[in-house]
């Protein structure tokens, strides 16, 4: 009967209860939406950076990461790729040879990142073929390259034109070549779009005079959650005196820091929102207590133990918070699902500003359970903290005074 009593007490003042539920639910929707957008953007940023640049894990020559030059390329052991691909949850091992070059077309020159790829393996990492926005699908060979749209725009060239690449090859060799542009590619990551030149791995090895060499073997995982277990397996498979295994967190500390800083600002915004809602909740709990002082006094007088009365009020608070959270979930899940499947692309005005900071101009949303569970925990935690007031009031309640004051 105590639970029944608590349930009915919630609905004693329907209007107030509904207003409280709506305000908490609104906070849950708003904070879930904000959090989903934030986490979705982080996932996208990580995915763009990690998948397109480094892979979640990478094997390279010891010291390469600190000095990323062609001279730090390595000759992969013959069975390395097979061994890596044999590890559980590894989707692919993608060989790469990367270095910088000057790209020229007519009178324009720009620094470019020449990436030698294995087109079939690369499908698992950058999926270049899907990123082609102009030109024929993936017809690169020793004479043809794909370049980023940003680079093409800067050089004012289009598909069919010839690009000249000049660089320093392996151990100081001269590297120069001209290639026909067979297609333009566009990535979510502006820095890649603005400087990438893709060519087949053998062509890149020939261009840089680095026969059979790789700068990295990127490891594509089936899911980011498998990174640490795969890393542990890789460390057993790889000769760690010559090579090193790095995960994306070590390779991209700036990305992690950027996300952490942004995350803190997002959390501060959420906290401000919850402080406002907290006052609303406290107002309700305060009313629930003060308007029932006489009744509490009567209940204590007739022989109800204080803890039972506290349990009833506590149950009311928890039930109220639970209903509000459930209503919030019921409304926010479809809303966020919609945005998850239909990310918000920003207009060209904002796009330029975003891309200046190397950020893709699109708001993507996350459907990770933590988006919702974290809101539930926050509301419950707030309810527990704010619920201390009525529980304390009951603990200190003198039935005689309560009945006198509550009349």
């Amino acid at each position: 009967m105590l639970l029944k009593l608590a349930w009915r007490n919630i609905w004693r003042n329907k209007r107030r209860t509904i207003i409280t539920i709506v305000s908490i639910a609104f906070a849950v929707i708003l904070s879930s939406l904000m959090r989903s957008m934030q986490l979705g953007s982080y996932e996208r940023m990580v995915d763009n950076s990690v998948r397109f640049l480094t892979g979640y894990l990478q094997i390279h020559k010891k010291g390469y990461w600190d000095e990323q030059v062609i001279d730090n390329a390595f000759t992969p052991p013959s069975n390395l790729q097979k061994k890596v691909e044999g590890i559980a949850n590894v989707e692919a091992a993608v060989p790469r040879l990367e270095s910088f070059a000057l790209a020229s077309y007519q009178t324009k020159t720009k620094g470019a990142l020449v990436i030698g790829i294995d087109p079939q393996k690369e499908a698992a990492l950058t999926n270049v073929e899907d990123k082609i926005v102009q030109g024929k699908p993936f017809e690169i060979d020793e004479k043809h390259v794909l370049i980023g749209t940003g680079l093409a725009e800067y050089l004012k060239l289009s598909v069919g034109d010839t690009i000249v690449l000049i660089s320093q090859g392996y151990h100081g060799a001269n590297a120069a070549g001209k290639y026909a542009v067979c297609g333009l590619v566009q990535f979510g990551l502006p820095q890649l779009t603005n400087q990438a030149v893709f060519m087949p791995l053998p062509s890149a090895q020939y261009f840089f005079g680095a026969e059979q060499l790789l700068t990295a073997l990127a490891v594509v995982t089936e899911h980011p959650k498998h990174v640490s277990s795969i890393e542990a397996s890789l460390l057993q498979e790889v000769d760690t005196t010559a090579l090193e295994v790095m995960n994306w967190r070590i390779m991209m500390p700036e990305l992690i820091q950027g996300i952490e800083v942004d995350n803190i600002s997002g959390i501060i915004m959420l906290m401000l929102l919850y402080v406002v809602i907290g006052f609303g909740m406290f107002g309700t709990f305060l009313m629930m207590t003060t308007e029932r002082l006489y009744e509490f006094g009567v209940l204590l007088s007739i022989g109800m133990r204080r803890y039972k009365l506290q349990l009833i009020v506590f149950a009311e608070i928890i039930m109220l918070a639970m209903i509000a959270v459930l209503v919030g979930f019921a409304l926010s899940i479809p809303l966020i699902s919609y945005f998850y499947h239909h990310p918000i692309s920003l207009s060209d005005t904002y796009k330029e500003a975003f891309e200046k900071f190397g950020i893709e101009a699109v708001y993507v949303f996350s459907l990770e359970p933590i988006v919702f569970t974290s809101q539930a925990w926050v509301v419950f935690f707030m309810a527990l903290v704010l619920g201390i007031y009525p529980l304390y009031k009951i603990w200190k309640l003198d039935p005689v005074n309560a009945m006198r004051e509550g009349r």
Partner: protein
Amino acid sequence: METTVAKKIVIKTENIAKTYHESKIPVQALKDVDLEIEEGEFTAIVGPSGSGKTTLLNIIGGLDKPSKGKIIIGDTDISNLKESQLIDFRLHHIGFVFQQYNLIPVLTAKENVEFIMLLQKKSEKEMEERAMKLLKEVGLEDKAKVRPSELSGGQQQRVAVIRALASRPKFILADEPTANLDSASAGNLLDMMARMNREENMTFIFSTHDQRVIDKARRVVTLEDGMIKYDEVR
């Protein structure tokens, strides 16, 4: 030869005094009150406002502690009990009827009567049977599933009285039970309590200003300035 059977004393107060220190000047609400209430009494405690009626009732009911003196209920000196012991004592031995908002508004009449038995951890069957029996006795069995807001003031007080009775207490303390009732309702309520007093030998102690209650009482204790001025048995 005529035999006199000594009646059992239910409540005995010995020199109880109560001083409030709420303001700078201490207020003495009760001064050396000695009172004995026997089983089956129908007693009204009367007196002007501030005479100490409610304080006396609260002390007898274990809701307030005296500054001095003893209160013995049955064989127990409740002036020395701890708060948790007092709560249990009230639950099992004392019935309360208050002036207003007596009932839990979100429970039905029957649930209100059952509530006190629930606190006493009685079985569902016993709660159900006793609640229905008591509701029937006061003519409210058809209102069993009705919430207090749908009952008249008089009906609410009748439910409050049977809720007090439901726990099978030693006596019932009623603080101005008719204060918010019209004459007819007050009359009905008093008749009902008088009948219970007669038929079940239940002891009733009222604090009241109401002449109708005073007229029905078989003993009237008049308080003035915290002291018993008259104690009249009719």
